[in-house]
């Protein structure tokens, strides 16, 4: 089954063609990161205007890359929530209109579900010997190499931090979620405090890595002199990152005050310059401090995410742990979680980086498993900016 997926929930516009919910024939993303970089974040009106212009070209390009014509497409899927209303509306309207015009089944997809199903995606059809096999539709729900149920999935992005148990396809139990800031949001805000730019996740990861390398090279004390608190919220699987953000603010303010009054700074009295970017001369001089602050923040956030995910994996005796969402691209998070899971012999799986951030292939993947069960949406489906996963009550 070939599904055309469309994604426009936030600042990207994507179209993808995916076979059987797994094999990516084409995945095109028109990114607006450069535009939003100028604003330090997503600007909704700019986003939806860009999306309107990008939607059709992106779909055309996806069809060309997949070498397939409209007659080969079996269904169309588009994200209908959660996200920015104006942005969602573009992709959903284009998707529904094409479905009507081409007389194809249509399915609206939950963006969070799509992030999870990014873990089913594989690069190419040619690399998989299973691809040509003509199985019955129902048997295609499970193939070798698919994630194994029951599983725990940690969804971490700019808007979400959720820990979810899945016992089967489309079966979600919410174990925990953020009570304030999302993990990706904390990365963005702390990057802004440290003057590291947008998007915050890659910027903090990069700054932390450089600083740690420099520590090793200069045989400075190998320990990070900065230590930030962790909110464990014991007895729950919920997260809280707002306090961490505030703690970083105080730490940075304190260091700037120390610097201004000439008091000695940790690790050799190097200068900190808070509101500059890593590339500037002033920051290069102060790099190690900003970098170590970034490392300390990353360590704190990763610590909590990894330990709580491991605890959930233990309690629910899962066979697999999945990462999903933009923050799943964070190398420190992957490494720390692998370390936590190794003694339990539970395998960690995460999508390739291009499927971690918003993309349309994951939308087509999630849609496939719904379409397999005969589900589809009427064309009066509306956007739902505050949509959550369809959690079961337990």
């Amino acid at each position: 089954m070939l599904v055309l997926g469309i994604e426009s929930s936030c600042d990207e516009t994507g179209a993808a063609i995916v076979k059987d919910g797994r094999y990516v024939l084409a995945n095109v993303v028109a990114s607006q990161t450069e535009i939003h970089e100028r604003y330090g974040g997503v600007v909704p009106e700019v986003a939806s205007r860009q999306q309107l212009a990008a939607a059709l070209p992106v779909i055309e390009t996806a069809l060309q890359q997949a070498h397939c014509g409209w007659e080969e497409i079996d269904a169309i899927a588009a994200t209908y929530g959660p996200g920015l209303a104006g942005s969602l509306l573009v992709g959903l309207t284009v998707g529904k209109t094409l479905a009507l015009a081409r007389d194809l089944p249509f399915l609206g997809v939950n963006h969070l579900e799509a992030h999870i199903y990014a873990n089913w995606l594989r690069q190419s059809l040619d690399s998989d010997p299973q691809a040509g096999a003509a199985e019955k539709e129902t048997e295609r729900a499970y193939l070798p190499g698919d994630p194994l149920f029951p599983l725990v999935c940690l969804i971490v992005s700019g808007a979400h931090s959720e820990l979810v148990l899945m016992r089967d396809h489309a079966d979600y139990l919410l174990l925990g979620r953020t009570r304030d800031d999302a993990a990706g949001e904390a990365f963005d805000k702390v990057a802004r405090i440290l003057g590291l730019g947008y998007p915050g996740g890659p910027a903090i990861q990069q700054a932390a890595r450089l600083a740690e390398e420099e520590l090793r090279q200069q045989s400075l004390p190998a320990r990070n002199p900065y230590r930030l608190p962790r909110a464990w919220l014991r007895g729950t699987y919920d997260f809280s990152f707002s306090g961490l953000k505030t703690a970083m603010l105080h730490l940075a303010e304190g260091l700037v005050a120390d610097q201004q009054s000439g008091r000695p700074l940790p690790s050799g009295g190097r200068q900190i310059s808070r509101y500059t970017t890593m590339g500037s001369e002033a920051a290069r001089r102060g790099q190690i401090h900003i970098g170590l602050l970034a490392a300390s923040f990353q360590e704190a956030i990763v610590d909590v995410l990894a330990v709580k995910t491991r605890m959930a994996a233990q309690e629910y005796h899962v066979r697999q742990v999945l990462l999903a969402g933009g923050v799943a691209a964070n190398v420190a998070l992957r490494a720390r979680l692998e370390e936590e899971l190794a003694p339990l012999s539970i395998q960690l799986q995460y999508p390739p980086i291009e499927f971690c951030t918003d993309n349309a292939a994951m939308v087509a993947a999630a849609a496939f498993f719904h379409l397999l069960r005969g589900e589809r949406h009427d064309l009066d489906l509306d956007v739902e900016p505050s949509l959550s996963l369809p959690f079961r009550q337990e």
Partner: protein
Amino acid sequence: MTGASQEEVSCSLDVISHSAAQTQRLGLRLGELLRGGELILLAGQLGTGKTTFTQGLAQGLGITEVVSSPTFTLLKEYRGQPRRGGAEQATHAKGLALYHFDLYRLEHPEEILDLGFEDYFANPTGVCVVEWADKAAALWSGEYLRVRLKLLSETKRALLFEAVGSYYCDLLQQFQKNTYAALGN
């Protein structure tokens, strides 16, 4: 001060909160007094407790869902729950909704107009709370209650309530009475 504000502040109230829990309780006391259609503006830097205050306010409205930061999505909507013992709430049998805005990411005030945010303002079925309201200072021409939050120390915050217009002035006086009955001046 935000340079653009021409408004008259008719009443104000200064409160010091010693903890996040207390900031949340202040929000709750205010939330309990709201009837729908109100506009509450929150101003203050990162980490001053704007979301914490809103979480309390949501509780006061009877909203049981987790209220998390709307920074990424700019707006989160929470459906209202009927409040206990609120006979005067008969017109809102479903309870009041909370429209929780966050302008943190906006650079140009006019962008907020393109978003259709006005559709929410003065909507009697819900209450609008706007974080980082000073990012669009020119927009707030009508009446509103503004809360300025300031960092005093790691745990202490100053909350300055400023009411513009007689409705909000009465609201603030009632809030003061309920919160600090003993201190009323």
